[in-house]
């Protein structure tokens, strides 16, 4: 009897903690989504008495924000393409071939995952000024490529591990060249891992603040950097509108991920940092 009693209490306690956690995780986001439709012209307590789209209008008519949004999208797209190309090739070589120093090299390629973003940004800033790279976009691209490559290498590696090498060996023994074996056999099978890596790269590039803060210049800055400086100045609700926009981007990426990989499978893959 005592045993069951203890179990009941423990179960209730755990259920209570989990319920509170869910509230903590979800409710703030609902609040800021709701506030973005606030009709009042100033920041006032939740809930908004009237709804309007004024904050969205304000966000989309603010040249400062739009410039940040455009830079962010172009940058995330370019960085994703570069990282995915480099990551795919690298993961393929690591997975298929034996060479000296392979372990060290793999660890080196995954190392940005444990280097704090601020350190990457600061170090890159000093180095790029030292060698004379002052173009804002080039500097941002350098930073975003280095922080996204580990994700593309990791997820591509995870995708390649499941493909038996015997398949491409069979193609080779039947007379295919290495290039044909790669493009006709390995690449189509590894596509899910590659796309997943690209999705991660895009998401992390769109979200980065710590690295970008150091590498922006007055005319080239990303949306998160613009939002942060706005947040520090005043807590305008057009940030809430931008937040809802970013949530939309997140959901779109999740849908892509589900379509391509299936969310269940992501669990077994390298989405965890570190």
């Amino acid at each position, binding site marked *: 009897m005592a045993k069951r009693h203890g179990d009941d209490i423990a179960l209730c306690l755990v259920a209570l903690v989990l319920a509170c956690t869910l509230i903590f995780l979800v409710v703030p986001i609902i609040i*800021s989504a709701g506030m973005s439709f606030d009709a009042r012209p100033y920041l006032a307590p939740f809930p908004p008495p009237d709804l309007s789209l004024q904050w969205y209008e304000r966000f989309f008519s603010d040249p400062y924000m739009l410039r940040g949004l455009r830079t962010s999208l172009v940058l995330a797209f370019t960085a994703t393409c570069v990282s995915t190309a480099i990551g795919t090739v690298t993961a393929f070589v690591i997975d298929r071939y034996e060479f000296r120093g392979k372990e060290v090299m793999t660890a080196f390629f995954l190392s940005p995952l444990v280097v704090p973003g601020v350190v990457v940004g600061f170090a890159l800033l000093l180095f790029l000024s030292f060698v004379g790279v002052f173009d804002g976009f080039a500097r941002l691209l350098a930073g975003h490529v280095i922080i996204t490559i580990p994700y593309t290498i990791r997820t591509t590696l995870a995708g390649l591990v499941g493909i038996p090498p015997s398949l491409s060996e069979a193609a080779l023994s039947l007379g295919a060249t290495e290039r044909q074996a790669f493009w006709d056999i390995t690449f189509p099978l590894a596509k899910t891992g590659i796309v997943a890596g690209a999705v991660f790269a895009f998401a992390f590039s769109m979200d980065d603040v710590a690295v970008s803060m150091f590498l922006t210049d007055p005319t080239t800055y990303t949306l998160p950097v613009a939002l942060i400086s706005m947040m520090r100045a005043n807590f305008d609700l057009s940030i809430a509108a931008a937040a809802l926009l970013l949530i939309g981007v997140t959901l779109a990426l999740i849908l892509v991920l589900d379509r391509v990989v299936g969310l269940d499978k992501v669990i077994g893959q390298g989405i965890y940092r570190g």
Partner: protein
Amino acid sequence: MKATRTTLLLLVPATAAFVLLLAFPLFNIVNESFKLFVPGRVGSAEDAPYTLQNYSELLLPAYFNYYFTTFRLGFLASVIALAIGFPMAYVVARMRWELGRKLSIGFLIALMFLSVLVRVYSLELTFGSVGVLRPVLRFLDISQNDRTYTEWVVIAGLLHYIIPMSALTLVGTIQNVNPRLAEAAMSLGAARWKAHLTVTVPLSIRGILSAFLISYTLCISAFVVPMVLGKGRVLFVSNLIYNRFSEIANYPGGSSLSVMLLVVSLLIVYLISRISIRRWEGG
């Protein structure tokens, strides 16, 4: 397959990117961190003499506050995230209802993908000066200017990312623990909570350690969360590095701090991975 020279050429782009954009810059800040800084300049002079001054400055009592805040709040957040993430992962991992399982995992992944800006902004709208909780706080007589309160808001900011992350990491771990073992303990008379505490938890200890390790390294290098939610009162080492750069252009000082943060992060990763390997693989 043995690698030929042409296949190794394929590693050139990645190697070049990492050497140019990571290794050189990091060596450069190590070098910079030993240079003498003259206040008022931007960075160090090209012919500045080498000195240990930037490192001895790290030992100033004024800095200890930052280290202590960073490592303490990071630790608290990581422990809480594990305590909540484990049962959460357990529920998801053992869910029989396929669609529910898929939706839960999708929900956790969506939370992880959420932009950090959305997080801090939403939490500020909830816990901040115009927040929903304001009447509650006033009723409980908690001042929002209180340092302890601000610290907990920062912890909340960290938790918002690392709870879903720990839970997702642990789902995979718990899936690999045979449920029959805990059932056996229960049929031999153990209470359910005790069976989990003595069977399920020890069997997933490697996953738990790695979830902790990931959370902790993420927390101590957090930048946006303390910057926005800390309101200038609760600052982490990352914020200090940024201030060295943006406010007083003391690059050597920022470099020595960066080197310290980097070394500590790498050390934690190394130590914990050693411990977990030795303890649980019998090596």
